[in-house]
């Protein structure tokens, strides 16, 4: 009855993680923002944008807020008194909040759209996560997820090079879709072995 003991894991590595877990194991594909800079991370859903924002917020010691779940449609963070601020889904932010956020010394925006023209002329560094990760980066993302779920010393499941290549060819930059495919594969896994292309091709990819 011990969950995933047969895989030497505590849980399915590709299930939903908490914010702090995502921050702890994030594989960053962009340099952290320098103090005093403004960075916008542009990507569609499922590309790892929020994981980057969580990690940047922790590095900067900055509050993190999402513009799509703000009560009354307005941000609640006290922007005027902040030295750093991280705003996710910024393309949904009220125009007034975006102008106010642009005055924060160090600002990180997560967005689906290019907001560089809406920040009062502030210079913006743009990071795009819509390109598929390299196979090495994908391998590291997968490895950290599995290690995070490790139960004890000893073998744990892994992914073959072919499985990684297949995931990239099928899902590209959509890490959420990769997550979903691997979740199903790990649910079916009988032991701490390597997941192969054949395992992924069994009706799941």
């Amino acid at each position, binding site marked *: *009855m*011990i*969950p995933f003991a047969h895989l030497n894991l505590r*849980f*399915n590595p590709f*299930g*939903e*993680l*908490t914010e702090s877990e995502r921050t702890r194991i994030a594989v960053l594909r962009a340099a952290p923002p320098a103090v005093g800079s403004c960075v916008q991370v542009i990507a569609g*859903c499922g590309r790892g944008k*929020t994981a980057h924002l969580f990690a940047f917020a922790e590095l900067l010691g900055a509050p993190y807020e*999402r513009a*799509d*779940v703000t009560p009354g449609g307005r941000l609640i963070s006290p922007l005027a008194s902040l030295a750093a601020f991280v705003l996710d*889904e910024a393309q*949904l932010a009220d125009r007034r909040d975006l102008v106010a956020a642009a005055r924060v010394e160090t600002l990180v925006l997560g967005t689906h759209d290019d907001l560089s023209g809406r920040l009062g002329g502030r210079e913006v560094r743009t990071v795009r996560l819509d390109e598929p990760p390299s196979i090495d980066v994908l391998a590291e993302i997968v490895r950290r997820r599995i290690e995070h779920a490790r139960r004890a010393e000893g073998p744990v499941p892994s992914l073959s090079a072919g499985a990684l290549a297949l995931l990239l060819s099928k899902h590209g930059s959509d890490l959420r879709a990769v997550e*979903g495919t691997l*979740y199903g594969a790990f*649910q079916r896994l009988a032991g701490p072995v390597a997941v192969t292309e054949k395992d992924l091709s069994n009706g799941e990819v």
Partner: protein
Amino acid sequence: MAKCDLRIVFATPGPFHAGEIVRGEVTADVYESVSFNKLTLHREWRTHGRGNKTTGGATSTVLAPAGEWSPGAYRFPFEFQVPNGPFTYRGNLLNVDWYLRAELDVPWAFDPKNEIEIPVLPGPSPELADRGPEFAAHYATVRRKGGGSGGMIAGLAVGTIFAGVGSVMAIIGVTSLAVGKFDGFCPGSMGLIFVVTGAGAGYMAIRNRLAQRRIGRPEVSIGPRDVAPGGAIDVRIQLQPAAVVELASVKVTLLGEEVVVSGSGTNKTTHRHTLHETALVLASDRTLSPHELPHFDGRFDIPASAPWTFKASSNEVKWRVTVHLDIRGWPDWSDEHPIVVRPA
């Protein structure tokens, strides 16, 4: 190397049953002298899987107050009564587990800790079991789909808004195309989609009301609503037709599924996994007349392995019976009724 390692050892191995007294000890193997604020034993249940994690039932016991340990081995006995749920569940999208975590609060340093799972099974009072923090509120007040006017009004409102906005967009688009501006294609086509969506939403909102003009208001009886695996549920659908009705079929379905939600806001996704689905056709090709009082009966056997109902934030095991009356030449009637599967 850590200054000490903590382990949790049970006097007898699990799984454990609700109400049972569990005894064990936390052992500390100390390698270097360590000062600490307290040694605490935490207990809680957590969900894990494809849904947002949620937790509950948290308790904490201080096993040792502030002190200092020299190198050596230390033992701290504990005992607690196993809670009456939620019970350990191993599903496809959802898992529920109880955890015991020993933690040493070391000032200005990494806190040594160790955590193990506690498998928890039903005990002598399963009818009183905790079935998740949202269970009681949900199953006490749940409304049947289509049973009240509130849902119909909301559906009509949504449908009207969509159709109205869509009509405006369609007019703009068509007007632009009429004067040779091909950029009117986008708003025009989007407008048509909105109009169709709005019409569909409005139709679904009033479909049952329309059906009831022919078949009367169906009386659906389901019993028992609270059943153990291996038991059975009887379903009766009583009709009082207002006119001659041609029923293509009367179908009832028992559906059990895991429903979990991942993400939040615009990134929220609902995932479903079917645990069990059985459909019964109680009648087909029947003609009913206004003076009849026909009823249709069926029985569902609940599988012996049926998972128990559970409801927490973003994580649910739910069971329901759906009723569908396929009326020839007239809108269909459908309804759904939640049932609860509990430990025996």
